[in-house]
């Protein structure tokens, strides 16, 4: 049964504008694309990182390299999660991290635990020069000292709500929505 959507926060146009702005901000902060790589957290962060890379490509002439990170095995809640199965795609980082400025990309920033897991995993691949974080939605309620450098939209939420990012490539529709969580439903990771 599809859950009732409580509110739409961003539509397709809103997502596009937010990602365009993030692309500009990334370029401004990093003075261009030298040593810049984008790494999306599977699944939706991966989709978003490719879109941001496309925007950067249009602005600068060439897109930065893009990698993908599957953080399943680095999560701290294996025994408590019903989502033990790995994502359908393994991590794929087709470049050396040494000396790179990495921008991690995810859809929703919530507790910060996914980002903690992603940073741990990055360390297994190499030692980047710096790591920055871009998210489409920051919904608050951090449980770790983690902060996003680039935010598409800040959305104050209650802990009883879930935020869902739907992307064409992944979900067939485009938009960011807030749901009231059903009793017994797990909080979305984040």
């Amino acid at each position, binding site marked *: 049964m599809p859950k009732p959507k409580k509110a739409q926060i961003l539509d397709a146009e809103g997502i596009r504008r937010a990602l365009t702005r993030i692309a500009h901000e990334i370029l401004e902060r990093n003075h261009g694309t030298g040593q810049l790589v984008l790494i999306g957290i599977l699944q939706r962060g991966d989709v978003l990182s490719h879109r941001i890379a496309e925007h950067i490509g249009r602005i600068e002439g060439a897109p930065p390299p893009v990698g993908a990170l599957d953080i399943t095995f680095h999560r701290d809640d294996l025994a408590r999660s019903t989502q033990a199965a*790995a994502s359908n795609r393994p991590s*794929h980082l087709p470049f050396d991290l040494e000396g790179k400025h990495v921008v991690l990309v995810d859809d929703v920033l919530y507790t910060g635990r996914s980002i903690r897991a992603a940073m741990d995993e990055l360390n297994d*691949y190499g030692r980047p020069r710096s790591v920055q974080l871009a998210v489409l939605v920051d919904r608050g309620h951090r449980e770790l000292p983690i902060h996003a450098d680039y935010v598409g939209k800040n959305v104050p939420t209650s802990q009883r709500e879930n935020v869902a990012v739907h992307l064409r490539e992944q979900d067939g529709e485009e938009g960011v929505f807030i749901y009231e969580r059903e009793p017994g439903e797990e909080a979305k990771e984040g």
Partner: protein
Amino acid sequence: MPLQRKDLLGLEGLSGEEIQLILDTARSFKEVGQRPIKKVPALRGKTVVNLFFEPSTRTRTSFELAAKRLSADVVNFTASSSSLQKGECLLDTVRNIEAMNVHTIIMRHACSGAVNFVAEHIHASVVNAGDGTHEHPTQGLLDLYTIRECKHDFSGLVVTLVGDILHSRVARSNVHGLRKLGATVRVVGPATLVPRCFERLGVEVHHRLEEAITGADVINILRIQLERQDGKYFPSSREYANLYGINARRLGLAKPDVLIMHPGPMNRGIEISPRVADGPNSVILDQVTNGVAVRMAVLYLLSGGEGADENLD
């Protein structure tokens, strides 16, 4: 979807979906094995015991590496130096190990069914690392993984298992897994080692090698277990090599891109010629690489499934 099971005892009891889940998860773990730091923290704080009542180097090492790459603590227990020598019964030994709060016991035993018996009587997860002539599920899974990696899809595939089918737990696990995923399975060997009753498992039974490997996509060559033979099942190793040994000439009957597999250890010059074992069609060492990834997937999924019903917040 996690694997909702305490134990992995054989492929006979798994569904096709569960097998695919394990293979999908193994693909992610294979990537971990290619990183500069081949280790993830998924099973930090868990204890895994290797409990081997039969000698093994490859399988035990493979499980040990798999557990270590998941950050679990691993203890190796070998039967020859154990209190079984002092007359303790199997269940007491296992219960003593469980009482030290271990999460997973990986067990190999010479008696078919011994691993199932233990699994029924303890709370820890049990992984069958080979029981008698019954099953060797992780070997079956790594064979399936290796085939899927090269051939992508099982439907329409012809897989021929050659050799001592009667005594082979690897053959049984392969037959169950391949049938569930939709492959056509042929078994071939001397009539003494390949009984007709295998037809009941849905496979073609052959006694002439040429027939069985014609048009095959995969040839999985089982080890002739010289230690089990004592001269009863075929006249000599030399005759076996003449009739059932896979050599370069016979390979011509199979498809040009046939995969040559062998669970090891190989008797070069008996069931497989060195040219075939080291040739371009051989994926024998890939099987070993994939074995670690598949065993990581099994240990990981069994741990995740276990906690799912109890600790949900």
